[in-house]
């Protein structure tokens, strides 16, 4: 045969970045729920990653308390995204402030062609899963403006925020989850008060986002699709509130062929300039 053993066709990389609040208020049962949930989630996602023909999943874990810290690192100890198959979870401990601004600055720094996104094969729109239970203690607003205005990777990311407990600042999370044009998106903030439900939620959001984020999209509907599906799966659970998605997203053929849902493709956007 004129052919050697086949190799898997090249796939785009789907980055999934967890940004997790490890401030003092997360201590005990909240952080414990996150740890337990992530152990299970990793198994589920390894399975999804193994069978997904459209993308290879890479994971990043960023935590913030008094300052922010990348937990995923390469062999030399530098912050890095890790292939799903090589990823394993290390328990987090909680303590300190809620430096959301530092976390956003770290994202801005690493979400770059010269840092996390250097692979030639290219990337699917990153997924950012942001979890917090409190009020920011630093200049989050300046940091958010900076990353939102200057970082296309962030702007195009699918952002899902989890507001844990009664003290979480949903307005700030809605702004972090904002749409590419900067409008806050309160529909992308999931409110959660029950720590058992939190475990399931982390698993469901992770699995759903990895599936939906992997497949090819020709509509700008990833965030809505993920949230609609998560809402369906969490509908029997207590202590979780997920908004109805009011965007015009729908899977229906009528929508897909309507003049408004597609551009004519002339504004192709093939610019290579992702770090301006």
């Amino acid at each position, binding site marked *: *045969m*004129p*052919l*050697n*053993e*086949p*190799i*898997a*066709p*090249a796939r*785009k990389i789907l980055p999934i970045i967890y940004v997790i609040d490890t401030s003092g208020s997360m201590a005990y049962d909240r952080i414990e729920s996150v740890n337990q949930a992530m152990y299970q989630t990793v198994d589920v996602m390894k399975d999804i990653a*193994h*069978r*997904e*023909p*459209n993308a290879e999943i890479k994971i990043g874990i960023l935590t913030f308390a008094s300052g922010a810290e990348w937990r995923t690192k390469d062999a030399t100890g530098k912050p890095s995204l890790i292939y799903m198959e090589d990823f394993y979870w290390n328990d987090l401990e909680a303590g300190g402030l809620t430096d959301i601004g530092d976390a956003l600055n770290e994202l801005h720094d690493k979400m770059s*062609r010269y840092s996390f*996104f250097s692979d*030639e*094969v*290219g*990337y*699917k*729109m990153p997924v950012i899963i942001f979890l917090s239970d409190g009020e920011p203690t630093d200049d989050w607003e300046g940091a958010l403006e900076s990353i939102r205005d200057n970082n*296309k*990777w962030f702007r*195009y990311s699918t952002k899902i925020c989890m507001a844990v407990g009664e003290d979480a600042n949903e307005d700030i999370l809605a702004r972090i989850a904002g749409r590419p044009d900067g409008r806050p998106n309160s529909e992308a903030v999931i409110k959660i008060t029950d720590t058992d439900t939190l475990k399931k939620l982390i698993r469901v959001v992770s699995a759903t986002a990895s*599936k939906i984020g992997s*497949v*090819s*999209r*020709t*509509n*700008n*509907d990833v965030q809505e699709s993920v949230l*609609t*599906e998560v809402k*369906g*799966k969490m*509908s*029997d659970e207590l202590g979780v509130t997920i908004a109805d998605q009011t965007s015009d997203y729908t*899977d*229906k*053929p009528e929508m*897909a*062929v309507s*003049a408004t849902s*597609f*551009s*004519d*493709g*002339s*504004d*192709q*956007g*093939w610019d*290579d300039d*992702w770090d301006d």
Partner: protein
Amino acid sequence: MKQFRPGKVIQTVKGTPLTIVKYLTEGGQGYIYDIEHEGKHRILKWYKPEKVNKPDKFYQNLNDNARRGSPSDSFLWPITATERTDGSFGYVMELRQDGYHEFTEFLTDCKRIHFNTFKANVEACIRIVSAFQILHHHGYCYQDMNDGNFFINPSSGDVLICDNDNVAPNNKEAFIIGTPRYMAPELVVPAILGPDEEGNERKTKPSTSTDYWSLSVVLFMILCMGHPLEGERWLVPLLTPQNERYLYGSGATFVYDPSDGSNRPNPKVHANVIAFWKPLPPYMKEAFHRAFSKDAIRNPGKRLREIDWLKVLVRFQAEIRRCHNCGGEVFMINAKDTPCDECGKLQRVERKLRFRDYAVTAFKGVRVYRCMLESCNAENALTRVGTIVANPSRPGLYFLNNTDMTLEGRTAKGTVKQIPPNSVVPIKPGITVSAYSGSFTIE
């Protein structure tokens, strides 16, 4: 929604209840359960209600399909729909036999799951084309062809097609627009077809001509292990939906488009496609050139149909032989002496079968189909005329009549001999075998 617990009983439209045995997995549209039904282990697909578009019509179509029955054994066809209950509904299908793998696994897990031979690879292509020919012949349109829809046996190339729930009469009802990367460009960006007679944007929906596009994509992916539109242009740092509309819709360009080299495979990233494309016979390359030409992208009527694929695929399969030295496969393109790629041994062409349009090397195992002899419609293309066989007790090769008709053989000297069903003619130069309204000559 909550998963069904083992032991739950659901009534089917057929009247025979099913019992949930266990939850298996989740797909885009629904959940898959192992069930017991009519004393057999079968599969239940249970829909996520939010994922079913036009549920009443969809349910009606599902029932219609189940009632009409499967068009061929290649389809894991709905046996019966369930009653509508628990907020949704589902349907029952047979469990697939062991030895078959989802085509997705060939793409993601190819160290473990790959075709054992290239001949089996081409066989899978022939089976898929043939199954879709039967489906289209029955007036159906598949609507959503993608790598998760068929199961292939990597040794035999046999194919089972599942997810037949979206199958609907052509041009009647569209339940799904398809899976990106497999969808026809006009389903991604209708504007590429230009405005309609009244100057409005066209409405596009799945049809047999969008199925033809998806079929070509699937065949390319099976043969080349990569996507026909994913070349340099796919290598953007961030693939946004806007990029994808261009890549798979408005700017769709075949990676080997002879008139446009802007989207060639990248040697570092698309090594598969480069390696697999190169050895393909010229007539296979030409078929893909036509299937993915700019013309076929913008004019759905110009796409390759089943008969076009069957003609080139059976020829290709007839040209793949085993090296007599090392057992590796050799493509004997255009019946020429060809060295084995693995051991270098030259494979000599001793005898050929000369058909109307081309010749193939005569060696044991070559199959002769009706579409090699004459122009015929797709339904008859794969009618087996004969096979080249060897007899252990006698030297040489023979042509075995596989039809149930008596064929006619004429020697170089003009002697005419009858070839009854199941009997043979020696592969000797000058003999012409006539079947249907065509013939071939041994050289």
